[in-house]
């Protein structure tokens, strides 16, 4: 568990970081909290000759909640997400989800930017951000551009971010209505066997909006428009919930691993999603 040799950089501004990425190309990677990258380097599954640590770049920090806009800097830690009261009022699902990530020690260091940018299907934040319809800001040599979370993930560890771009912030509109982040895992610190992020708003007894995303059930997070559509306009009764669950299950493609075989994961995905919908409805 000893990594290979690498050069370590700790730039204090973004342009310097981007310059390092441009100079070293494929040989360079940025590091946020390092909880995914460093173990891969120690296992020698990742060979990173030039490691660019982002922790001294102040511009990547801070949570801004301003009326109808929430902006979270990429280097904000999971702990800061949990502790921020303004963020909790604007989007309580974030605290509920972040509390289910690993353990306090990991959450003091792990960042939202690292979590969404790495493209690891096991990470919780990508599905959550798809559920919130967030937008990711990325900076590269040609400036800044925004990529919707729902269009960001291409395959496991492959995203719409270019190699010389740095993910700098996550933005979304405050949520309204009920919410739930439901996760089954084997133990503290484990990735999800199945997890679901659900937002539901009601107009009287009728569902006025819904958003459903799932984690670690495919090689990317799964945002299910069909599942959301099955709820919108419905009375959120058992038939509508079952239709939404069936629609979402049609879109997942879990793989067998130490958590269990495909058949089990599909079954559990349905159970977890149903529970998430029911809890979100109860809060709507």
């Amino acid at each position, binding site marked *: *568990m*000893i990594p*290979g*040799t690498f050069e370590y950089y700790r730039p204090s501004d973004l342009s310097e970081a981007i310059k390092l990425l441009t100079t070293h190309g494929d040989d360079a990677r940025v590091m946020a909290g390092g909880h995914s990258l460093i173990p891969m380097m120690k296992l*020698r599954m990742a060979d990173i000759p030039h490691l660019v640590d982002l922790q001294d770049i102040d511009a990547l920090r801070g949570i801004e909640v301003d009326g109808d806009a929430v902006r979270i800097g990429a280097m904000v830690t999971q702990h800061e997400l949990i502790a921020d009261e303004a963020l909790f009022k604007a989007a309580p699902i974030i605290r509920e989800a972040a509390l289910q990530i690993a*353990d306090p020690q990991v959450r003091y260091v792990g960042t939202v930017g690292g979590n969404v940018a790495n493209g690891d299907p096991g990470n919780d934040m990508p599905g959550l951000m798809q559920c919130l319809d967030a937008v990711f800001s990325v900076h590269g040599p040609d400036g800044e551009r925004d990529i919707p979370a729902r269009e960001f993930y291409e395959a496991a560890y492959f995203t719409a971010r270019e190699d010389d771009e740095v993910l700098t912030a996550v933005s979304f509109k405050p949520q309204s209505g009920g919410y739930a982040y439901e996760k*089954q895992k*084997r*133990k*503290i*610190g*484990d990735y999800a*066997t199945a997890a679901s992020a659900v937002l539901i708003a009601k107009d009287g007894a009728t569902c006025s909006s819904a958003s459903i995303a799932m984690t670690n059930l495919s090689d990317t997070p799964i945002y299910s428009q069909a599942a959301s559509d099955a709820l919108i306009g419905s009375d959120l009764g058992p038939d509508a919930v079952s239709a939404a669950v069936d629609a979402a299950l049609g879109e997942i493609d879990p793989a067998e691993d*130490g*958590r*269990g*075989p495909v058949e*089990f994961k599909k*079954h*559990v995905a349905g*159970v*977890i999603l149903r529970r998430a919908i029911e809890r979100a409805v109860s809060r709507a």
Partner: protein
Amino acid sequence: MNEMSPTKSERAAALKGLGTSRKRVEDSRFTQGKGNYIDDIKMPGMLFGDFVRSPYAHARVKSINAERALEMPGVIAVLTAADLEPLSLHWMPTLAGDKQMVLADGKVLFQGQEVAFVVAEDRYIAADAIELVEVDYEELPVLIDPMKAEEDGAPILREDIADQKTGAHGARRHPNHIFTWEQGEKEATEAVLSGADVVAEETVYYHRTHPCPLETCGCVASMDKVNGKLTLYGTFQAPHVVRTVASLLSGIAEHNIRVISPDIGGGFGNKVGVYPGYVCSIVASIVTGVPVKWVEDRMDNLMATAFARDYWMTGKIAATKEGKITGLWCHTIADHGAFDACADPTKFPAGFMNICTGSYDIPTAYLAVDGIYTNKAPGGVAYRCSFRVTEAAYFIERMIEVLAIKLDMDAGELRKINFIKKDQFPYNSALGWEFDSGDYHTAWDKAMQAVDYDGLRKEQAERVEAFKTGETRKMMGIGLAHFTEIVGAGPMKNCDILGMGMFDSCEIRIHPTGSAIARLGTISQGQGHATTFAQILASEIGISADDITIEEGDTDTAPYGLGTYGSRSTPVAGAATAMAGRKIRAKAQMIAAYLLEVHDNDIEWDVDRFVVKGAEERFKTMKEVAYAAYNQEIPGVEPGLEAVSYYDPPNMTYPFGAYVCVMDIDVDTGEHEIRKFYALDDCGTRINPMIIEGQVHGGLTEALAIAMGQEIAYDDMGTHKTSTLMDFFIPTAWETPHYLTDFTETPSPHHPIGAKGVGESPNVGGVPAFSNAVNDAFRAFGVDHTHTNMPHDHWRIWKTAKDLGMHD
């Protein structure tokens, strides 16, 4: 008497002796990060070794090319089997009478096996260099399933002994077969089975797992070429045995070898054996003349050093229709991996598996164990249990549950009918042990009352009804276990390791001012020996435990002993401590009598002093006697106050306990929640109740891990699937339930202070309690459903529910 003089009970309390919840003296350094573990040892010029390991489970090694690695700056040497062969160190004997490759000799037999040892100036260079060692492998067919080991066409693993028809434990019927070990009466048992009212049968798999101590294994070998002395620091649970083995292997005279076990961060059996890393570090230090350190990383530890369990146990248990057990039959396939490196007393190739009649009066029994080679890591150590006792306890406690289903009886009642009765002790079991003492019915009744057992069964019945009407999706399981341990190995008449008798020792020196140091042949790995052994001695010699230093682990200073594992420290070294203390007291009595100017027989011991019989105002404290022993001429008595005792126990000790686990199970997700866990332990005389409670908490948590998720798993190609803590389950505080502890106290009749040992009981009893709870939750849903194998992780529990139609 002066009003200010402390009373007898105050004087006794001041000693902090037996029965005191004295705080652990070790903890001030551990909690401040001031422990001294193997990786804290840094010596001038020290080099670091690391292994090239096999990526394959079975392959021929066609060539090893270390040229590129040797060209790397900072690389000192690359050792292969060819380098060790002239020293006859390319293979080494195992504790089980087999031999094991130190470095791959022509082939590899498990993934992670040591192939070459790179020695470099630091561990970073060593890790880079192992990637540059080019090994040319030719893959061979692998054998993973021990049931297929003797099939036609099965790959032959151990070509080195393929033609040997006899091994260390008798006849071998196939090249992949290691031994057959039989105990009890086969024909008589089969006769009982064929004539029985009821016979319950089951195959119970106790899966492969790993002790996974927080600190991995490692050593620092330092050969001083000037004075010819080798100092070996290491994570050794048995430092004296390591010294003897190192001497026999290397040819270095034993007085020129000093073995030191510093602080050890948990052992749980993993640190009993001798590993290739130790041998290679010693050779490297001899070759280079400077110290060489080797420390495993977590993956090395989980993949290559000793695993535990891996027993396939097929049982038949016979009973009358009223539930009186009449016979027990057990056949076990023991998967030993590539080499038989089990750490068992030499005459017991399956450890004390013949304790598998459990707490029950079973008149006739038969046990056979077949050891098998597979392409997996060697080991088979006693992971927080005495030798194979956890396997035995799990087997019988599952068989009792299966029999209860067959008889349609309550499993608690079935146990009560069959417990060995208090007046049957000492009890001779059908498989050859003499149980020293026990009072199982009292313990059991106390446990049943404490948990309101009848109330729990009523609630469970209501839950089953609620499930059937759709009101709940959570089942309730009540896991019962009554275990009997066999620890304290052991009497030299039947216990030795590599010919070394399994006694233990204590040497005491009383200082002139009345404090003391005691040294033992054992070594603490977290058990708190520095605290508890001082308490034993305090009660024996009347010096406060706070004034007694306990030292272990340095073979140059401590008396010879067989080390710490198998809950043997208290039964064996604890007895030696008490006996050495009594020798001190015997000499002190002569000195006190002289000082008091009375005959030896006219004084008696009173807590911390000798008093003149009938005149207790005339006394000499042990402190006063100690001063006199060094500073006053006592006619006919040598100066000084020291004693040593080597204790050969007359018998094992047999701790026991009654555990109850109440668990809720979500049939849709397979998740579980432990609502209650009650653990009653009877470990005989209780030395330090706080440490006992800590031991029980720790052992139960390891049992929870094993029962509910922890495993060493391989795929069909022999690739290790659980080599990191992402996949190998170690519970955190979050997964760990609250434990209720309780006790009864049935002293061992043959131990000087009546103590039996407790460190391993909670693992032995805990695993069946957790597993029985899972199985019990499903009892109402299928007569044919009698057993599911561990580990009871989410998907396996879910699968049981699915197979029983609970998702329909």
